[in-house]
């Protein structure tokens, strides 16, 4: 434990500024869509020379207080379904444990390169399939101008009277526990694999459970808090958290997460899906670019070292692009929403309608 602490990196102003800014942008995206930021922060810290496990631990340690502040803020706006969040969080905790076991098995079978390849493959498949659908759905809503509707799958599941049936007050729906738990479980498994469970949790709550985008993204912050706290306790027990890194990221992300939460009250309900879909698709391309590195290490592909290094750099840059794109869309939508709200003849849009339709 002491050896790890002895290897904590030396911080300069440039690295502090980098962590603060990425923390702010990551917080902004998290406050708005309920997750995100972690996929840039961990490789970002590693690029500064932080060992991988310390980067993951320090990132997780900033994640749960950020999620707490975001969840509190959005709870005040009436967007958080606490019961749904807690059921999701408990089942996600089980999912994390199963995900970790799968990771251990893959690591034992194929080594670190095999594990990295599995993570990248999971990233690409999950993000392309789910991100593509989320983006398509949002694009359809934006094009037709229709309000968000409950998916056909969720409607069918809600009609099945499989006890125990649970009524979620804020989400305004009634569904069996047996359809809610698998969504949480899958969230946990993805969190253990790619560290961003929200990419499955939020779409799961929207399309399987039947909650609105607004309620799902807000409720995901509760899941992130519970999972982040549990994960941090585990990492901190092994002495992996570099509190300096955590506090610098937290300094930026607490500004970002509150701005993102405020932003949700100004935008149309499909904007959450647009931001989430865009980020997921760009990240999928980014992880796709990282795959040749691991395939070369496993002798599944032959590629020059220069090319592999270039693709790895391009992958990281694209991750930053994904986060920046999300931030630009959020700030742009918020700016438009504020201007529209300031004009007297504005049509009522936003939270109330988003919740009322579900």
């Amino acid at each position, binding site marked *: *434990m002491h050896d790890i602490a002895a290897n*904590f990196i030396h911080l300069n102003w440039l690295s502090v500024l980098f962590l603060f800014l990425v923390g702010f942008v990551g917080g902004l995206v998290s406050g708005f869509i309920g997750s995100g930021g972690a996929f840039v922060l961990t490789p970002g810290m590693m690029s500064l020379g932080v060992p991988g496990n310390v980067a993951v631990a320090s990132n997780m340690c900033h994640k749960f207080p950020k999620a707490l502040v975001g969840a509190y803020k959005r709870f005040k706006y*009436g*967007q958080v379904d606490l019961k749904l969040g807690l059921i999701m969080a408990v089942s996600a905790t089980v999912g994390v444990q199963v995900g970790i076991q799968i990771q251990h098995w893959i690591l034992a079978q194929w080594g670190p390169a095999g594990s990295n390849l599995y993570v990248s493959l999971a990233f690409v498949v999950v993000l392309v399939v789910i991100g593509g659908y989320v983006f398509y759905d949002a694009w359809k809503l934006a094009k037709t101008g229709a309000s968000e509707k409950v998916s056909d799958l969720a409607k069918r599941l809600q009609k099945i009277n499989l006890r125990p049936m649970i009524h979620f007050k804020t989400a305004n729906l009634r569904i069996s526990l047996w359809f809610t738990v698998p969504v949480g479980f899958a969230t946990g498994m993805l969190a253990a694999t790619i560290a961003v469970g929200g990419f499955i949790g939020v779409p799961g709550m929207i399309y399987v459970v039947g909650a609105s985008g607004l309620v799902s993204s807000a409720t995901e912050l509760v899941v992130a808090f519970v999972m982040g706290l549990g994960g941090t306790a585990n990492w901190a*027990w092994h002495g992996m958290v570099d*509190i300096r890194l955590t506090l610098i990221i937290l*300094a930026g992300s607490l500004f970002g997460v509150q701005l993102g*939460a*405020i932003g949700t009250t100004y935008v149309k309900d499909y904007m959450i899906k647009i931001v989430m879909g865009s980020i997921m698709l760009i990240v999928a391309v980014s992880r796709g670019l990282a795959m040749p590195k691991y395939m070369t290490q496993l002798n599944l592909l032959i590629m020059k070292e220069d090319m592999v290094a270039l693709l790895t750099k391009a992958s990281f840059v694209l991750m930053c692009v994904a986060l920046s794109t999300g931030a630009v869309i959020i700030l742009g939508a918020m700016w438009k929403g504020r201007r529209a709200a300031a004009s007297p003849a504005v049509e009522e849009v936003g*939270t109330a309608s988003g919740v009322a339709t579900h």
Partner: protein
Amino acid sequence: MSKKRNRQAGKTLLFGLLSITLYAAVFSHGTAVAQFFARGAWYAILPILTVFLFSFVHGAFASHVWTLLGIEARKTAQHRPEKRKAPSKRKRPRPRLQLRA
């Protein structure tokens, strides 16, 4: 500057100073604190309690900064449970005896 804005500026300043104090306390001996907090086992409680404290103080500071800058949630868009209409008070005039002579 209105009274409300003055009060807001005061709160921002107070939490800003508290936040700076906390950050200064950690980063004046940054490496030593980081190493002490990373001893593992029951020392794990230290980073967890620290981030809770920072999230309260610095989170409140960040919230006041946005409010001071005029960036607040849109009140009309916030979801509030519908208020039940209270039954309107009706005038029920007392029956009076009228003498018809």
